[in-house]
């Protein structure tokens, strides 16, 4: 055995292709063993992407209410949008989102502005020559001299919203009753005491030193320029957004389609056609718009809320608008399907957004494992049949060789299909089909070798010495067919890898376990294989590399098993 390995090593060293095969197989085996560490993703996970989107709607006089989706404004969630301050001629809208993202809408152009932070920005305000953005970790940004600067914050928690009054005084609110005030551009922020420690979600300041703050569980606070006082809300639901057009035209919206209205004297509840969580509201004179999660939108016209079906299942988080149209922004987590290879997904993704690179890596394990088990089964059966047929001859030989003939008449793929038809797809079916059918070649080859060995003097000597048939077969003859058996093991392995891939491709493999064939099976099922080359190429190349490496190595084995070849 040791000698055999040494001879094999020598033979491989002399053959450049065999060396290539050995190195490749070693790498592939390592990939199989360390698969979970190499794979970048969970192969079954449907990878999603988030993208900031804007949906234009409620256009006066336009068909279908002018619904128009604007995609991929950012790679993160957009959380808040406001009309940009007209006096500064600084565009139409200003929006902020996760990752410190700030974008200015100017006509059809979108300008991303440099941001000094990378935390989530949740609120934005633009009025009276002042622009502010607030977010997590007590972040307050102010645009001073055309540049966003981070201001010293009086709180460290999450800040949800900011509003400016007509004179440029700002009020910011946040979680756990956090609130702060800044009187003018660049002025320091002062903590404002709140009567409740609830989360505050939004603020509106329609007039100088006057406005409302809304928050969790029906929290309503009135701002009088110096302190916040609790007001009686008509309900106890979370209120997520508030907007106003003057002190007697204020709307607040919240969970389960809640809408509250303030007419200058008192708050009342309004009928709403939407049951989702309303996250944003915008009031302009008699008109108003509100946006909710799961793509729900509604418009207030002639005193009645009307549901607008956008046709898009997006989570909206904020609404802005003018006299002619509204715009809702939000997040769009969508399945990252059929993307080309990128730094994030080396081999791209499937139609379900699954990472193909990770699937190929995990597939290596299945392919090698199935191939190895099947090949060992084939070699063990084949070698034993060959030994018995070749040594015992006569009737045994006849019967065994008839069986081999029958095996040759059974086509592998259809046979596996019959097995699957009678049971169910699975790894054991593939091993069984390959193992049961393909020992035929090994048996024939070993048999002819044994036939010639059986006439050699050492066998005759053993016979004379009274050795039993079994002893002669396994002790005297078997070691001599070992090199050939190893060669057949390699050939069987190459065949088994192809067979496993083929049967898995036909959908006969285990559905929850990735193999190279399964990946291609799913590519075929999805119909995307005709164009998604990144889905088809990698598993096939892996099959090819593995099989050809085994072929190359088996050439070196052949030289040992069949010394006649070496001489030539």
């Amino acid at each position, binding site marked *: 055995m040791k000698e055999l390995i040494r001879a094999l090593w020598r033979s491989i060293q002399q053959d450049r*292709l065999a060396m290539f095969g050995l190195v490749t197989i070693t790498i592939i085996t390592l990939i199989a063993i360390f698969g979970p560490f190499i794979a970048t993703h969970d192969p079954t996970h449907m990878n999603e992407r988030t993208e900031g989107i804007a949906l234009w709607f409620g256009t006066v006089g336009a068909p279908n209410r002018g619904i128009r989706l604007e995609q991929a404004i950012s790679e993160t969630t957009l959380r808040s949008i406001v009309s940009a301050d007209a006096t500064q001629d600084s565009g139409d809208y200003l929006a902020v989102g996760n990752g410190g993202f700030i974008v200015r809408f100017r006509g059809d152009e979108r300008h991303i502005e440099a941001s000094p932070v990378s935390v989530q920005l949740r609120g934005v305000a633009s009025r009276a020559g002042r622009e502010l953005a607030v977010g997590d970790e007590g972040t307050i940004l102010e645009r001073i001299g055309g540049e966003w600067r981070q201001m010293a914050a009086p709180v460290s928690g999450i800040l949800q919203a900011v509003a400016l009054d007509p004179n440029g005084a700002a009020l910011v609110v946040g979680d756990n009753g956090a609130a702060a005030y800044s009187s003018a551009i660049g002025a320091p922020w002062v903590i404002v005491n709140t009567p409740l420690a609830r989360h505050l979600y939004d603020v509106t300041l329609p007039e100088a030193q006057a406005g409302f703050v809304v928050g969790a569980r029906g929290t309503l606070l009135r701002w009088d320029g110096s302190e916040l006082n609790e007001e009686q809300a008509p309900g106890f639901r979370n209120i997520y957004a508030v907007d106003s057009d003057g002190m007697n035209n204020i709307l607040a919206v919240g969970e389960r389609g809640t809408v509250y209205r303030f007419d200058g004297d008192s708050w009342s509840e309004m009928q709403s056609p939407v049951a989702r969580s309303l996250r944003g509201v915008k009031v302009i004179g008699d008109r108003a718009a509100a946006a909710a999660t799961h793509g729900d939108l509604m418009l207030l016209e002639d005193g009645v809320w009307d549901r607008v079906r956008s046709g898009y299942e997006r989570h909206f988080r904020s609404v802005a608008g003018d006299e002619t149209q509204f715009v809702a922004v939000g997040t769009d987590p969508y399945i990252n399907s059929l993307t080309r290879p990128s730094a994030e997904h080396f081999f791209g993704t499937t139609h379900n957004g699954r990472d193909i690179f990770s699937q190929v890596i995990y597939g290596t394990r299945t392919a090698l494992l199935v191939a190895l088990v099947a090949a060992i089964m084939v070699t063990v059966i084949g070698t034993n049949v060959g030994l018995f047929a070749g040594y015992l001859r006569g009737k045994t030989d006849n019967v065994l060789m*008839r069986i081999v*003939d*029958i095996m*040759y*008449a*059974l*086509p*592998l*793929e*259809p*046979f596996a*299909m*019959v097995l*699957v*038809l*009678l*049971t169910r797809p699975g790894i054991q079916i593939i091993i069984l089909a390959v193992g049961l059918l393909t020992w035929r*070649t090994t048996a024939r080859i070993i048999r002819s070798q044994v036939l010639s060995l059986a006439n050699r003097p050492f066998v005759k000597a053993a016979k004379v010495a009274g050795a039993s048939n079994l002893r002669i077969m396994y002790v005297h003859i078997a070691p001599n067919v070992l090199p050939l058996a190893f060669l057949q093991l390699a050939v069987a392995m*190459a065949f088994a890898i*192809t067979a496993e*891939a*083929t049967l898995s*491709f*036909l*959908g006969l493999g285990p559905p929850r376990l990735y193999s190279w064939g399964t990946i*291609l099976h799913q*590519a*075929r099922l999805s119909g995307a*294989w*005709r*164009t998604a*080359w990144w889905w*088809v*190429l990698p*598993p*096939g190349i892996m*099959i*090819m590399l*593995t*099989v*050809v490496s085994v*072929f*190359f190595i088996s050439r070196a084995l052949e030289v040992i098993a069949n010394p006649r*070849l070496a001489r*030539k």
Partner: protein
Amino acid sequence: MRKLILTKILQSLFTLWVILTMLFFLFRLGLPDPTVALVSDGLSPEDRALVIARFGLDRSLPEQYVIYLGNVITGEFGRSFHYNAPVDTIIGERVLNTLILMLPAIFLSYTIGPLLGVLLAWKRGSKLEAGGISLGLILRSAPMFWTGMLAVMFFGINLGWFPTSGMRTFPYQAANFLEKILTLDFLRHLILPTIVITLYYIGLPMLIMRNTMLEVMGEDFIEFAEARGLSRMRVMYRHAARNALLPVVTQAAITAGLAVGGQVVVEVVFSWPGLGLEMFNAVRTSDYPLAQASFLLMATIILVLNLITDLIYSRLDPRVTYRSAN
């Protein structure tokens, strides 16, 4: 010679009988309720009674076995669940569709392959030989369904040179099989799958031919032929190659068996309406009678092809005939 043919035919029939028996027991004993293998849930009570009577499903197992053998001989395979039609009429043409795709490809592989093999042996030690051997092994290592997918993707979709599915462009009219295939449209459909199958199978006969050629080239009669001043070309292809053909023919018989199985994936990739695709669909829809009949026909095709190669073999190697005559 005649006796040899007769023996071979009898052997093939015996093999077929064993496969028949194996299938019978697989389907009758492998399923919890053997009637589901033949009687579909959707059958009308009359049809149901008819099938049960025809296959003796209410009788004992040995009786069923005898009835089963009789049915197979007369081509009675039952009714397909999926098509709700007799299986024999469904798969009749499928067999021809499969053969028309498979035979030209195997023929091409086993004519071009050995010719290339001779060339490799002739140019022994050259870069051509080394490249040829590697290419042969690489072609053999790329699974057919994958190269088929690539061919469809590149030549079919990307370049748009060839149609990518089926045998003919719909709608078409053809009164019979010959009318269907004797058209340019059919040839266009045939090209891609044929190339894919040929490329996969060409490597083996090429490499085997090269190896045998190297053995044959060392023999006396080659030296004699060269001494006679015959051209190298003539010596190689007429004298040496002829004597090196036997192992290739042996391999052809084995390849026929592999090709029938491998055919399934090619038919699936190219939506070729052959036996393989039919069997694939039958397995997906649990159409037991159709699957069983398709399998049986595929095994029969292998046996017939093996019989033919056996006969070619005995023509090529007179020793085979002597041996059987003695």
